[in-house]
């Protein structure tokens, strides 16, 4: 079984975890007396997609590569924005309705940087980090989510 995968230095923290994501700890990590703004993004499991009901999401993750890609996109964000600190965490395994599957916290001297970097980080994470969700519908069916691929 996998344990938690982590990568942390003074200004960047990355985690893939089977446990609930501790957003308070992430906010403490990015807190800095050089920063005047912090943005926290949380992705949570939604019950309804259109009229279909989800009971939970099951995530699968290519952990070693996911940590590597998360590190790379944080480095790329650093080259675009002068943020102070950033923390990124993704759940793997089962995430029930209302729970957090992904969280990103960014602190910066000014708020525009924190907003832009946080939004770019979640947009980019969703495009390049090797993690997959399986919808577990209330009718008992299950379905891997692969944007752009529809089984025939």
């Amino acid at each position, binding site marked *: 079984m996998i344990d938690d995968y982590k990568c942390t230095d003074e200004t960047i923290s990355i985690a893939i975890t089977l446990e609930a994501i501790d957003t308070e700890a992430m906010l403490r990590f990015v807190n800095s007396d050089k920063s005047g703004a912090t943005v926290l993004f949380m992705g949570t499991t939604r019950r309804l997609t259109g009229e279909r009901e989800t009971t939970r999401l099951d995530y699968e993750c290519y952990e070693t590569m996911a940590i590597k890609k998360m590190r790379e996109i944080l480095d790329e964000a650093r080259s675009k924005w002068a943020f102070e600190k950033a923390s990124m965490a993704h759940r793997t395994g089962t995430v029930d309705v209302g729970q957090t599957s992904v969280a990103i916290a960014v602190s910066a001297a000014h708020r525009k940087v924190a907003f832009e970097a946080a939004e770019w980080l979640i947009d980019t994470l969703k495009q390049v980090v090797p*993690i997959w969700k399986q919808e577990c519908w209330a009718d008992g069916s299950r379905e891997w989510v*692969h944007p*752009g691929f529809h*089984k025939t």
Partner: protein
Amino acid sequence: MIVKVLLFASAKQLVGESHIELGLDDEATLGSAKASLIEHYPMLMNLLPKCTFSVDQEYAEDARPLYHGCEVACIPPVSGG
């Protein structure tokens, strides 16, 4: 050479294994590994054109040379977040 191919999500579900091993020529590239994969696991026929591949945890193109023991992964369209 022998390379390990990790399978995730639908790819894992279709094959029924989380990883498989492929025996390849010594000059094999990622492209020849993909051809061998479809040959041995035809159930991946529809999905594979939508997948990207990595070698040693880096996204890679078909021309990428492989080596004995390297870690290839078949990466269906991702849906993290």
